[in-house]
């Protein structure tokens, strides 16, 4: 394997912990070992550290400090929001609305609730992955207790019209949750002006540590706990706090939201150059997701006649880290539910490649990918029994 260099373009999967974040965390690993719930002074330092991380997150989202609850990641936040609101409001209704392109943390949770007798509407999306607010309007019934539509999709990067969706939801007196795991730290997010009642985020998607996240719960929202036990997080999320992780997430959100617009422009420029380069050098490709309403770093293209996982393995042999909506990466050979929802045929969906660019990428890396990818695609196409042996 010729491993010329390492080009990491899978930032939607996870990001490297920012060196300043590691630095902020280490004191809370090495010392400061109090349990934030204890009464003595060293524990109070731990408690204060958790408190100021909470302030950082609240500031970033435009929320109040006591609307932020730390969790073990985006998945727990999603599970909590969906199950917590559903169980707490079951007397008011049994109907939940979400979209077909949610992350599995939402979809599998909804499917679990379905087995318990709750009714779920999975809103369709158009070819770009956009939810139609009209569809939402028509789906709400007097049994609806929760609408959950993601802020931005993790595979195709499409940014949903959350403000419009939230406002329709509120007209019917229903709570609006958004899985903003891919959005927070990458595009400006403001819970108040968007009208969000609950919002999930995950630290490791914006250069924080893996295994920490948060749920924003607007004051007054009726929600059950999902982790019962001690009185942590104002009696709402039990369990000794992941002290270093929380401190790291606080630092990471500060760094991520500083100059977020400027960074977005830089990232978008690299991403667009990557897209043009791919379209110029490889035939039979298709851009997945919306051309404009998308996360700055997300690129998702399909290549006919080939399968994604083999593409990833070859790219890996050239030191390029990427992702696909196909195959065994997600535990099954099924093509991505997101791509299928946009109307892509299964065999094309199998040939999708996701490259997610971030601030730590460079133009040189973009060039390297552009010089490598056509070779990889053409090699796999030569091996493929499909198509007319189109080589790039």
């Amino acid at each position, binding site marked *: 394997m010729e491993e010329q260099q390492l080009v990491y373009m899978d930032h939607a999967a996870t990001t490297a912990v920012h060196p300043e974040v590691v630095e902020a965390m280490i004191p809370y690993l090495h010392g400061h070992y109090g349990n934030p719930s204890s009464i003595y002074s060293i524990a109070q330092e731990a408690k204060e550290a958790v408190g100021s991380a909470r302030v950082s997150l609240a500031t970033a989202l435009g929320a109040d400090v006591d609307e932020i609850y730390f969790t073990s990641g985006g998945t727990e936040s999603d599970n909590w929001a969906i199950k917590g609101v559903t169980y707490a409001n079951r007397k008011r209704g049994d109907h939940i609305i979400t979209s077909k392109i949610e992350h599995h943390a939402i979809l599998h949770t909804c499917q679990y609730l379905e087995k318990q007798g709750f009714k779920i509407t999975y809103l369709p999306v158009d070819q770009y992955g956009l939810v139609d607010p009209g569809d939402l309007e028509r789906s709400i019934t007097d049994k609806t207790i929760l609408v959950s539509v993601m802020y931005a999709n993790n595979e195709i990067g499409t940014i949903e019209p959350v403000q419009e969706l939230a406002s329709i939801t509120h007209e019917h007196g229903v709570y609006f949750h958004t899985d903003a795991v891919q959005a927070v730290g990458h595009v400006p997010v403001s819970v108040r002006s968007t009208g969000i009642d609950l919002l999930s985020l995950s630290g490791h998607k914006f250069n924080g540590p893996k295994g920490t996240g948060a749920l924003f719960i607007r004051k007054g929202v009726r929600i059950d706990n999902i982790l019962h036990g001690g009185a942590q997080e104002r009696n709402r999320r039990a369990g000794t706090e992941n002290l270093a992780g929380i401190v790291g997430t606080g630092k990471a959100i500060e760094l991520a939201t500083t100059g977020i617009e400027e960074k977005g422009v830089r990232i978008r420029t690299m991403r667009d150059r990557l897209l043009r380069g791919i379209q110029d050098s490889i035939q039979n490709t298709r851009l997945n997701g919306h051309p404009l309403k998308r996360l700055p770093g997300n690129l998702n293209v399909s290549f006919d006649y080939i399968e994604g996982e*083999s593409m990833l393995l070859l790219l890996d*042999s050239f030191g390029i880290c990427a992702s696909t909506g196909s195959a065994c990466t997600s535990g099954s050979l099924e093509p991505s539910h997101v791509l299928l929802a946009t109307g892509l045929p*299964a065999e094309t969906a*199998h040939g999708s490649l996701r490259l997610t660019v971030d601030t730590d990428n460079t133009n040189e890396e973009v060039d390297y990918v552009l010089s490598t990818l056509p070779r990889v695609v053409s090699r796999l196409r030569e091996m493929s029994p499909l198509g007319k042996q189109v080589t790039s």
Partner: protein
Amino acid sequence: MYSKTVMDHFMNPRNVGEIKNPGGVGEVGNPVCGDIMKIFLKIGDNRITDAKFKTFGCGAAIAPGSMATELIKGKSMEEAWEVTNKAVAEALKGRPPIRMHCSVLAEEGIHKVINAYRVSHNLGPWEEKAHSHHEEKDNGGCKTCYSG
């Protein structure tokens, strides 16, 4: 996640391509499920004198195609028939059994192409067993291969 041998067969696959005027062609799998294995044989004197394959599928499908065609070259039809997915997997050493699905595809391909040859030569097909390895699960028509 793959063994050295797998990666070697993946990076430098043997016998990729087509055989013109083949003695037999067999295709298994389904593009909707993300995997196709197509095997081409040249047959003389009841022996496989050449074998080639093309594949569309997850990375783990390329190496078994390469290995399976290597294993059956030079073998009699009867011998080739006995090249099971286990043999392919063992030859590829250490492939995690979770990817067994993909070597099953190679075994099925061998059976399919041999029977295609037999049928076209009026020999009557041999009975292909159903593959129900515990590593596989039915998944809306497509087999599932776990990533662990």
